[in-house]
């Protein structure tokens, strides 16, 4: 049996009669990087708040490192915003965190940690004068102080510039590979998550719709190419030799292929069949595609009867 780091059993949270998280039962294994994906209001943050004991579940239960003794340094987290002392310097924040975790404030390690996240360890600047990006970097450094086994991150790249996002991703991957840290991370930026997460839980309306691994998504998705053509029916016949096809509009067709054939060869086949291609678009991230498709299935495609806008019916 795999070593489980987080397990939840029908975890539910109801605020003022509104169910925010409903019957969530998940297991997260040691060494994985798990992406928690969902729209605003899907229940990601509430789920993370319950796991970090900030919020009490209405029903259900959960355990971090079930069956094992958890010590002060085992779990670290960033929930929504950086939890840092604004009236202290960056280094003093790390010293305070060391004391809280019962660790000796190792100057060398603390300096290394600050440098790792791109902050100046010798800066006398108080945190209240930091930019949001710097605060977020410091918050990540705070989580690293105890070298945690489990890291829970809620939107950790909020406020970071592209370089910062890249740096943080590198740090998370490094932690996971070198120290075996298990990471649960929620993010809206699916393209970013898909670059390093090994598993995904997709949430909607408080429920977990799907648990899927990155490998499964890759296998499901394959290569998706959308083409604008003048003769869709003829194009469909030509493209069927490369994979699944779907006519999505009067002049657009989507090819989903696992074939190794280069796009130029596909174009050549279409040209030989005298089909004019005016636009070719390699479709986006497969996690994003998968997510959108999954949500479409969950949502009603037709509006309810008697639904009216401005007095008129649809």
């Amino acid at each position: 049996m795999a070593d489980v780091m987080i397990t939840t059993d029908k975890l539910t949270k109801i605020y003022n009669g509104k169910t925010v998280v409903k019957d969530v039962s998940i297991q997260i294994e040691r060494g994985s990087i798990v992406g928690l994906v969902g729209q605003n209001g899907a229940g990601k943050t509430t789920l993370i708040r319950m796991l970090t004991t900030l919020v009490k579940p209405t029903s259900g239960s959960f355990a971090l490192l079930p069956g094992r003794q958890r010590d002060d340094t085992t779990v670290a987290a960033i929930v929504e915003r950086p939890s840092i002392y604004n009236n202290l310097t960056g280094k003093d924040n790390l010293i305070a965190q060391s004391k809280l975790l019962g660790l000796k404030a190792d100057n060398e390690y603390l300096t290394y940690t600050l440098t790792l996240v791109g902050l100046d360890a010798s800066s006398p600047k108080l945190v209240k004068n930091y930019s949001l990006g710097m605060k977020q970097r410091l918050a990540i450094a705070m989580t690293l102080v105890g070298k945690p086994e489990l890291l829970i991150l809620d939107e950790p790249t909020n406020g970071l510039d592209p370089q910062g996002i890249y740096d943080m991703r590198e740090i998370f991957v490094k932690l996971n590979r070198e120290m075996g840290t298990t990471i649960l991370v929620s993010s809206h930026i699916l393209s970013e998550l898909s670059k390093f997460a090994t598993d995904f839980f997709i949430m909607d309306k408080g429920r977990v719709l799907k648990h899927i691994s990155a490998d499964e998504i890759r296998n499901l998705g394959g290569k998706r190419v959308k083409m604008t053509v003048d003769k869709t029916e003829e194009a469909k016949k030509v493209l069927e030799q490369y994979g699944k096809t779907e006519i999505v509009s009067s002049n657009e067709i989507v090819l989903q292929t696992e074939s190794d054939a280069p796009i130029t060869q596909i174009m050549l086949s279409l040209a030989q069949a005298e089909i004019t291609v005016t636009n070719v678009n390699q479709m986006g991230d497969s996690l994003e595609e998968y997510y959108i498709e999954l949500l479409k299935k969950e949502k009603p495609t037709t509006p309810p009867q008697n639904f009216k806008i401005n007095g008129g019916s649809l």
Partner: protein
Amino acid sequence: MINILRTEFFRLKKSKLFWIFFGICCGLPLLSALLNLAMAGIIESITELPEMSDLAELLRSLNVTTTTLSGLSSLMSDAALFSLICSSVFLSKEFTDGTMRNVLLANKSRKEMFFSYLIVAIVIGVSYLTAFFAATMLFVATLFGFGDLSAGAAVSACFCSFALGIFATIFVQTCVTMFLFAVRKQWATILFPILICMFAPTIFTLIVQIISNILIVNGEIISNTTISWIPFANVTIYDAGKIDGGLIGKIALYYLLFSGIFVVSGYFTFEKADLK
């Protein structure tokens, strides 16, 4: 709990607000003692003027040292006020900065968190009170000496007010801690304890009088004198003559009773709360 305390004391050491108020607590008694010294000089010069003989007689009837000590010990409530503001600002930062999340993530229970912060608040209060008292005794002894005090009553009353000040500090700081954990907003943590400490004794007396139709007070279950010793109703040596062990014990018990109510209500509210 030890780790939370270590963290908080590290923060406290770095807190400018704490040290500024601590300086004020040491400086105010000096200022007050100097003013009294100046007054003593004025009285001396007045007594030499024949046309001011009546006033001089009146002033001479006042024991300068006793007056000074009385004034200073009544200012113990200032130390409580400073400690109230300091501890509420200092500790509510944990909620405004969101750092209390780090405490929970470090595998600490809410109980540990509550009682650690309460201890920190009491330490802040007691350190201000001690600084104030020590400075008072030091400056008064240096400037006036204690030799001319009748039977040392003023000094013993001063020690008595210090002892009761500690109970008052516990009362004030449990009040701060209750609002800190129940409301978790900085303004509420400052404002409500001040209002309670300033107006609660009067309101409480009024309620007791209304409910009991003065029977309780007259029946000596609660005396008006005792009520007036609840925090911020002043702990002065003006009433030195009335001080006895029973009264002090009763006052201390009142403080502890109210402190206990604050602890219970603050803790159980926090224990059930959802945090942001």
